[in-house]
């Protein structure tokens, strides 16, 4: 009772919970899952854009793309480290991912069919991710919040790069403009789905939201974040000159926000359930890399142990020599 009060006091005072602090098991478990799935999303998220590294249309774009995908690996590493402060290790978490017991953001089950998809991902997907992540910078759990601060810094850079890819395409040849518009047509709605189900009505979540908000893990509702996203993207779309594929999109003078069309939640559910274009491929690719690399990791471990053992022998012998 005394330890739990401490946790609740910290939460009430909007203070950070650190690894050494006591915390309810349910809080710890929720965070492990959320941070792990966030990490998984970063590393799975390397694949859609990674597919264009060897095919980028210029050396400058190739360099930017390698750096971006590399950043995503780094984000994955920060987040796995943050999760490790909660008593799990990366290997366990990866096993959960590989076995489908933990998930990753469903947005990455969509394919990158053209170069313009790299632009759309940066602009829309990173844009939505930022919208979801900025509030997490004030998350109650210290390691997660600090990881998020680092991630958000880099991700805003990524979002600008995505915008810039599309900007260049829209000022290019008719074929390039068509490529950009086609990518926007395919990524817009999935990006909106990144904010999760509506907060009320039949698609409402099952109470998790309320608990996460109480624990300072979640700061804003799904629909709030989604609305902000739409309002911001509409402006950017205008500047780009791309058409947002929503005939019901319109400015609501009264709310000072945009109304937008109904999301096809059946698609969302289907993709979540495994039926997106790339679900099988993303996990298969991940597992293959992991399995192919097992002997390498084992070797590194074996070598480190041998090295340690040798050092210990050296040390022992030095002591013996000194003693005599």
């Amino acid at each position, binding site marked *: 009772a005394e330890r739990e009060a401490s946790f609740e006091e910290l939460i009430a005072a909007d203070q950070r919970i650190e690894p050494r602090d006591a915390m309810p098991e349910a809080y710890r478990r929720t965070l492990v899952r959320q941070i792990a799935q966030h990490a998984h999303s970063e*590393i799975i998220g*390397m*694949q859609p854009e*990674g597919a264009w*590294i*060897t*095919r*980028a*249309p*210029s*050396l*400058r*774009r*190739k*360099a930017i793309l*390698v*750096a971006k*995908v*590399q950043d995503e*690996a*780094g984000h*994955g*590493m920060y987040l*796995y480290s943050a999760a490790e402060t909660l008593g799990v290790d990366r290997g366990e978490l990866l096993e959960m991912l590989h076995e489908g017991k933990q998930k990753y953001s469903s947005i990455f089950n969509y394919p990158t069919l053209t*170069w313009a998809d790299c632009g759309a991902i940066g602009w829309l997907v990173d844009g939505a991710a930022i919208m979801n992540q900025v509030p997490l910078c004030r998350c109650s759990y210290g390691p997660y919040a600090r990881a998020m601060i680092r991630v958000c810094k880099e991700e805003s850079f990524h979002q600008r790069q995505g915008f810039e*890819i599309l900007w*260049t*395409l829209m*000022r*290019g*040849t008719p*074929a*390039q403009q068509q490529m950009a518009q086609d990518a926007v047509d395919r990524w817009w709605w999935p990006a909106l789905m990144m904010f999760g189900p509506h907060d009320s009505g039949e698609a409402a979540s099952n109470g998790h939201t309320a608990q996460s908000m109480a624990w300072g893990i979640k700061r804003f509702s799904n629909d709030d974040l989604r609305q902000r996203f739409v309002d911001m993207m509409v402006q950017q779309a205008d500047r780009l000159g791309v058409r947002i594929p929503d005939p019901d999109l319109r400015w609501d003078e009264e709310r000072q926000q945009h109304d937008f069309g109904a999301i096809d939640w059946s698609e969302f559910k289907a993709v979540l359930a495994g039926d997106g274009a790339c679900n099988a491929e993303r996990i298969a*690719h*991940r597992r*293959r*890399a*992991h399995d*192919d*690399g*097992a*002997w*390498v*990791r*084992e*070797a*590194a*471990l*074996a*070598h480190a142990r*041998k090295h340690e053992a040798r050092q210990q022998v050296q040390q022992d012998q030095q002591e013996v020599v000194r003693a005599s």
Partner: protein
Amino acid sequence: MTSRTTTPADPATAAYLLGLADDAMVYAQRLGEWLTNAPQLEEDMALANVSLDLLGQARALYPRVGELDGTGRGEDDFAMWRDERDWRNVHLVEQPRGDFADEMARLLWFSTTRLELFSAGASDPVLAGVMAKGVKELGYHVDHAAQWVVRLGDGTDESHRRMQAALDRVAPYVDELFTDDETVLAVPEADRGPLPSQLREHVVRRVDRVLHSAGLTRPEPGAWRAKDGRRGIHSRPMGSLLAEMQYLARSHPGATW
């Protein structure tokens, strides 16, 4: 295309730099394939670093080649618009990815050799600048490769076997790194670094030290050795590499990206 400078044309130095640029470009392309495929995230990051460093070296050298050969070509003219017969890289860098040991064997030979060359400096100002920066980068590349070769050579039985097999597979590609081709011989001594043949002794000694410390042996290659990459004679994988790398750019001639 950049505008013509008043740099006097120097086709011999241009051709020499082109080989060095193409080595970096093609190897950067191969290394880029490791992202999402590496044994662990730390390696996705490390190999991405090596790829970016080499890509940067290529991007710094290509415009200089364009100045010296009088064409004024830019980095993408070189990377996207030359056909296979005009590429001057060695065969080692165009080979498809193998397993992680194959990559560490390739990285060890490539970066140790390039570091040795870059350490000597050169008179061409652009090359000198690339070399000065590159020496630091290549130092990391060599260390990274050496550390892994040792870990794998002195890790498990399986990793030792694989690392030795990788060294065997890369062996036929090593001689070409130390071959004095007509391109390098055409450059006045003052304007170039050491000849490839002059690098061999030190490089082999450094590689041998790494291998020895890990209980690995440096195999003698058999009858067949890769050659003539500097003359634009490449192996089958080069065709696939260029098709993948250049397809999009060539599909939209004149477009800006």
